[in-house]
């Protein structure tokens, strides 16, 4: 069983997010990066599947500038077997189709049985890379997966629907599956794992060696959202606060 896990490196939730001079992304130099939290669940699920079978290979794949090797190493330290770094130099691509075509071209000769991705990235949040790659490679696909059950040539997954509904779907392998966050508890790397990761292979593939179609979607500008709402702050002692809430419900929102 050969499993690829696609991980992205994104700004940490506590990082400052200064807008760059050209106003089209954040200023890379002052950002603290982390592994995209949803991808951490996908990585954990891959490691669990491999441990359950007792054999196979987990390959961590990431695209970006040299800094992303940090998240690949983190995956290797947790137990993945090797890494693939799709090296982007000058320009960080945000078009999901071009991104997916790069992954597809870089991964097609590997013949993975399973490709796992996280729900979406915390930065651009396009939420489609794994499914695009699945379609491009001719794999079966599923999203929002909260449980996996692998057998010989198929995988059964429990999908989360909306409003408290769920669904089981059986997919033939190979498959590309997008994992819903929270389905497992991602492990921390052990000291032994961290030491061992240094010896594991990271293959570097340059984006210039990969074939893609034209870019068709772009982020032109980013900006701080304007708060459109006028918020009334209710202050004062408890009696005043309670009185004002009752008053709002009676005479302003008119629900009681």
């Amino acid at each position: 069983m050969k499993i690829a896990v696609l991980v992205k490196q994104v700004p940490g939730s506590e990082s400052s997010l200064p807008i760059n001079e050209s106003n089209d992304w954040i200023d890379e130099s002052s950002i603290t990066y982390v592994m995209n939290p949803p991808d951490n669940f996908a990585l954990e699920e891959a490691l669990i599947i491999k441990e359950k079978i007792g054999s196979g290979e987990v390959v961590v794949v990431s695209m970006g500038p040299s800094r992303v090797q940090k998240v690949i190493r983190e995956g290797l330290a947790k137990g993945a077997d090797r890494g693939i770094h799709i090296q982007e130099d000058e320009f960080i691509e945000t078009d999901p189709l071009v991104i997916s075509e790069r992954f597809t071209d870089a991964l097609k000769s590997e013949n993975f049985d399973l490709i796992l991705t996280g729900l979406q990235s915390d930065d651009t949040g396009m939420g489609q890379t794994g499914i695009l790659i699945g379609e491009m490679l001719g794999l079966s696909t599923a999203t929002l997966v909260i449980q996996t059950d692998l057998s010989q040539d198929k995988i059964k997954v429990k999908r989360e629907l909306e409003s408290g509904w769920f669904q089981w779907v059986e997919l033939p392998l190979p498959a590309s599956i997008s994992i819903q966050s929270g389905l497992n508890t991602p492990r921390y790397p052990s000291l032994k794992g961290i030491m061992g990761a240094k010896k594991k292979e990271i293959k570097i593939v340059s984006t210039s060696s990969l074939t893609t179609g034209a870019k068709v979607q772009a982020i032109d500008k980013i900006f701080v959202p304007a708060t459109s709402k006028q918020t009334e702050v209710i202050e004062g002692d408890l009696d005043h606060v309670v009185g004002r809430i009752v008053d709002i419900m009676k005479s302003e929102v008119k629900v009681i």
Partner: protein
Amino acid sequence: MNILVVIEHSQGSIHRLSKEAIVGAQSLGNKVTALVIGERSEKTITFLKACDIERVLTVDHELVKSYNADGYASIVSQVIVTLSPNLIIAGHTYQTRDFMPRVSAKLRLPFVPDIVSVSDNKYIKQVLNAKLNAEISSSMNQFILSFQSAAFSEEDLKLGSCDSEVYEPSLDSSVVRSKSEEPFQEEAGDVDLESAEILVSVGRGIEKEENISLAFDLAKAIGAEVSASRPVVDSGWIDSFRQVGSSGSNVAPKLYFSLGISGAIQHVVGMKGAKSILAINKDPDAPIFEIADYAVVGDVLEIVPRLIESLDNS
């Protein structure tokens, strides 16, 4: 401008975000076609035939009686090729996220997801955990958009009348490779959050399971339903069918009374369509206050009992 709106329906009813997608399509183009796939769609088709749109296309095929990504991706792609719409629009639902990327890859059409507003061909999307907004554009004259809940208001729906036509897709069983079982609920509930006028919604600020009853007592006093944010559901303190947010229900009540909810983006997308939002939270920096009409910085466990007492006495 020709627009195709892909409609979602379940348990016989049209999804609220599909209604909002129709409103969005009406505001962006003059020739709107709504596509309805699957069985038990009579009510949805009747609803759409009373909207100010060009027509309703229906697909009722053995292989897509209920939703599956393989079948939907194939049918929607075929309809796009047949009609050549300029825009393909859907609500940003779990179902859209599941099959629309497949359509995007099949036809190499950009899929611009989770749009919160549109002006002058600029599509605004939240990025970096909703801390910043991005303006997105496409160089293609045909692309796919999905709208986040409350990007458009159902109240602006223009009514009219139109006919429905049957679309015959070419679909055989080799296309549908995955086997989907019937959807199920882990806890069955007959609570209809989406049509509730008032919701009392609880978050982590309620602190303990035994405090959940405060929300039910308040709800009883003002004739509300009780809903919750994901952490409270995940803790097992309340049934999952009461969850509001991207994985729960999308609600738009007259009053959303939020008790100790911090306002993570996954929650906010499901409730920001509320007419009024009153939020109580201890943390003055809680993101919920950014979208609240009324903000109370304080302890839910202190304020709510007094509020119930006051309502009981009046």
